[in-house]
């Protein structure tokens, strides 16, 4: 039984990665008949020297940290609220799952329209903020472009995350709360000692998935800003696509992809390490 699995792994996972690693040491261009030329570490060296590349690495980490932190806090807050009994709770739950079911590509069309400099509805909201007197140049100014990307990402991702946390919340034994209350625990203590440990495994694995998916998230950024202005909002994935597929420079693109791979693996190892430390090994 081991043999088929191993062969399958080799074919579907290992071969493309091996090929990619090989390409990252070559000068190769898409759609050319000449075979790749071995150039050793040249691609990696030129990446290390490129200020643009380091900016993009910074962007990638910034995007992962900023967007995910907001997503986790909002999702946890919303889940705790939805876990209480109130009128219209069912409706609220249905509404919160809408963004996840909405195709990313169509969502980008809607958001770009909302971010339209002249006619977008976001200008109306911006007008409510004191100190903003004219329409922001939403997708063309680096800072507002980042704001726009993060806002849309949060909108798209946090409802789903919060739905998952909500389900985990509901699986916590209600008697635990009752017992703790009799022992005189306050609501902060209840949260700290019952709620948080109860949802920690779910929170952990979802945070890992969201971080990883954040690294590879493509349409939102690529279709919203194209990574621009310049590469100010490009993440590694976007720059890799632009380099390898649009500029046809496969060798350099492959080197970028391998850097992305190493980053993702580092995060996973970090995650496994932290969860082992906290005594709730997942994997």
């Amino acid at each position, binding site marked *: 039984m081991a043999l088929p699995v191993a062969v399958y792994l080799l*074919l579907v996972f290992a071969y493309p990665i091996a090929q990619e690693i090989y390409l990252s040491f070559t000068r190769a261009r898409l759609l050319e008949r000449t075979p790749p030329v071995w150039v050793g570490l040249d691609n990696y060296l030129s990446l290390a020297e490129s200020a643009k590349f380091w900016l993009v690495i910074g962007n990638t980490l910034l995007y992962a940290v900023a967007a995910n932190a907001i997503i986790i806090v909002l999702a946890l807050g*919303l889940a705790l609220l939805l876990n209480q009994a109130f009128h219209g709770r069912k409706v609220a739950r249905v509404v919160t799952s*809408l963004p996840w079911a909405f195709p990313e590509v169509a969502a980008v*069309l809607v958001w770009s329209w909302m971010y339209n400099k002249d006619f977008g509805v976001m*200008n*109306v909201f911006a007008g409510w903020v004191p100190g903003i007197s004219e329409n922001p140049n939403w997708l063309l100014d680096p800072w507002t472009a980042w704001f726009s990307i993060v806002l849309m990402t949060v*909108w798209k991702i946090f409802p789903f995350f919060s*739905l998952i946390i909500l389900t985990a919340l509901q699986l916590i034994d209600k008697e635990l709360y009752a017992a703790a209350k009799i022992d005189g625990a306050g609501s902060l203590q209840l949260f700290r000692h019952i709620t948080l440990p109860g949802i920690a495994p779910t929170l952990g694995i979802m945070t890992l998935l969201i971080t990883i998916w954040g690294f590879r998230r493509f349409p939102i950024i690529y279709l919203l800003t194209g990574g621009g202005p310049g590469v100010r909002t490009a993440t590694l994935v976007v720059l890799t696509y632009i380099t390898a597929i649009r500029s046809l420079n496969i060798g350099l693109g492959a080197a970028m992809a391998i850097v992305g791979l190493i980053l993702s693996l580092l995060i996973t190892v970090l995650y496994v390490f932290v969860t082992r430390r906290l005594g709730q090994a997942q994997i």
Partner: protein
Amino acid sequence: MSDVPLVRQFSDSAEAQRLKRRAQNLRVLGSITSHTTLLLALALVLTPFVWMLATSLKPEREAYLIPPQLFPSRFLWQNYTDALFKYYDFFLYTKNTLIITISVLVGRLLSASLVAFAFARLRFYARDVLFFIVLSTMMIPSQVTIIPLYIIFTKLKWIDTYLPLTVPAWFGGGAFFIFLLRQFMMTINPEMDDAARIDGCSFIGVYWRIVLPLIKPALVTVAIFSFMFAWNDFLGPVIFLRSLEKQTLAVGVHFVNATASPARRPVITVVMAVSTLMMVPPTLVFFALQRYFIQGVVVTGIK
């Protein structure tokens, strides 16, 4: 009266009244805060949908008002018929997308569950190492493999066919799905399999007759994820498909954005109508199966 209950006596004291009032005030304050927060969150979630629907029903001229107006002067349903029949091969793209989505779905359910079964139930050399390798591929950005895959598919002469988009799903269906199903299978008591084995059931029999029926929530989860991923995939069709008439909805939507009007500029009202239409199938699938779906995800996270 001397036989007033003790509780009553206590609750009548001034100190108790004060405490009670304070607790009540706190509760009211808390409930106001939480309801406000909830309303704000729902407003954030709903704004794009409201704006999309509003724009999709406006005459084009009214979409370009400053300041923007929410309600159209009249509902222009023609935007939807334009989206469906005039500017855009909506039904062709839908058919293409469905062909891809369904073949991916079937392949993924069968192959991912089979691989997951091997990892969950069979003992073989280096199983856990292999599983860890599969898991780590989950962390690989698709951009890493897309270039080698492009080269492989070019050599196979598969470019501009649906094969690059569908065949991989029949080979394991992706690490995430294997992981999800394997986690779920681990929650099932293996004594069931043993009993079936003793009664003469083969491994495949155990897989098909015992394990598959028991992991239905996980299978539904995989089905929904798979449907969403395939339905929404943008990079895959853009890279592997060339002909316009083979394109999917996700990519087609962007062509309509570019060429929707005779003047070859996007008619934003039609674009919003298309976006609305594109949202319908995944939303229906999601809500029909939501209950199983969440259960599947959570069990995966807990075990």
